[in-house]
């Protein structure tokens, strides 16, 4: 299996001196569904945001599909980002515009800056966005304003936006942390089913160990900016959990 994502000796120190990532190295293979677990402040969000350069890494390398994200120029970063979808804890939809438009935002990286800024999308793109919404059971909400939707629906729009990018990788940063247990379950089912059907590689930051164990092919445990566990869900026993979360 070829690695679609290879991280070597990644380090991130924030301007205030916090060392969020000490020395992280890992390889993710095409089509893997990986859960990243660890206590708050362990560096999970920073790790995900370094991959699409929403956060500037301080050192090391991140090879995404053959391109080093750490060395990428502005244009290369945008090209990289459009191949990497992202899902957020707070959904981060643009609240005042329609659901359909939020999904079309996923196409911005493929449009030239002017046409994209004016909101001109091709008929085909609009048709595809509608299909994605249909697939996620949101076709009736298409023309509603994003903030009229419930939390679970908003997160599905978040997934739809990522899908319209036709991504190689999806990064999900605590996608269920703001949702109730039942909705969380639905969102995780949708996310894992879609990634498997479409062959999308997925990295999910999670708080809940049990959810990680149920959905992931592989679990990575992070603590204080270093990888302390990396293996299949079966290998994550109480002792290993203790190593990630323990005192």
């Amino acid at each position, binding site marked *: 299996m070829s690695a679609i994502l290879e991280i070597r000796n990644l380090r991130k120190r924030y301007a205030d001196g916090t060392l969020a990532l000490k020395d992280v190295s890992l390889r993710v293979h095409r089509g893997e569904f990986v859960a990243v677990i660890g206590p708050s402040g362990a560096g999970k969000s920073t790790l995900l945001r370094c991959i*699409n350069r*929403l956060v500037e890494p301080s050192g090391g390398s991140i090879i995404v599909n053959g391109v080093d994200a750490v060395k990428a120029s502005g244009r290369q970063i945008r090209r990289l*980002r459009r*191949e990497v979808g992202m899902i957020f804890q707070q959904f981060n939809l643009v609240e*005042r515009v329609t659901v359909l438009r939020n999904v079309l935002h996923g196409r*911005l990286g493929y449009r030239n800056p002017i046409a994209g*800024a004016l909101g001109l999308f091709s008929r085909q793109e609009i048709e595809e966005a509608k299909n994605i919404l249909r697939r996620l059971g949101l076709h009736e909400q298409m023309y509603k304003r994003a903030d009229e939707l419930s939390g679970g629906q908003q997160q599905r729009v978040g997934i739809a936006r990522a899908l319209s*990018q036709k991504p190689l990788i999806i990064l999900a940063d605590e996608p269920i942390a703001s949702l109730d247990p039942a909705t969380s379950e639905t969102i995780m089912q949708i996310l894992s089913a879609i990634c498997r059907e479409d062959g999308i590689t997925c990295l999910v930051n999670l708080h809940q160990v049990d959810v990680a164990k149920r959905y992931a092919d592989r679990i990575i445990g992070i603590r204080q900016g270093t990888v302390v566990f990396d293996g299949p869900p079966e290998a994550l026993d109480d002792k290993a959990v203790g190593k990630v979360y323990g005192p």
Partner: protein
Amino acid sequence: MKRSGQLLEDLQKRKKRQIWLAAAGIVLITAWSARETDFSVVSVVRGFGEIVRFIGQDFFPPDFSAFRSLIGPAVDTICISFVAMVVGAVLSLLLSFFAAATTSPYRWLQASVRAVCSVLRNIPALIWALLLVAAYGLGTLVGTLALILTSVGTLTRAYAEILEEIDMGQVEAVRATGASWPQVIAHAVLPQFFPGFVGWSLYKLELNMRASTLIGMVGGGGLGFSIQKGLKLFQFQEVCVAILMVIVLVLTTEFITGKLRERLI
């Protein structure tokens, strides 16, 4: 338990004492200011009769035959206020990006834009008009320029504050799709910016409408100028019509902008 009760009682006593002190202070300052400014209730009451006589006999009945000649100045007032708001809004839109902590490229630039706007805003439009009359002479141009200056001062600050309160999560999400800078501005920043932008611009139009009357009095054109002229020529019944027109204009603007705000936000 007993000790904390005692403590609470002490605290309450101290609070009471502070309130009494504050009240005494306010009374003292008021009395002193009244003495300094020769303010006395007696002279106010005595003057009141004079005001009633002046308004009742000199201003009424309004001379509505003057209405036609006042339409031109009224239109001037509307145009001055509107143009000043639009030009001010456009300039402020550009400046606000430099004045907001979240979008300004340099800290010193942010500080200097804010400082300039503070000066523009805190010097009243009336003073600006007086200064500008010296340079440009009497006329509507002076009124427009004076209002543009204060509009830029007010709106830049207001827009910058809206920009600083934007939900950066939405911006981050659009950035994460690979969108370029103009795309991020258009799709993530503007939708959040729009309601506040419209609200503040319309409010400034209202303020301009009021201020333009005052500015007119020092030579900035419009209805204010007609009022000033009428007062000097003792044509009080014409002035009365002009004042009524100002009231109608201000109220109408308030009504229309209120309705627009409801629609758009």
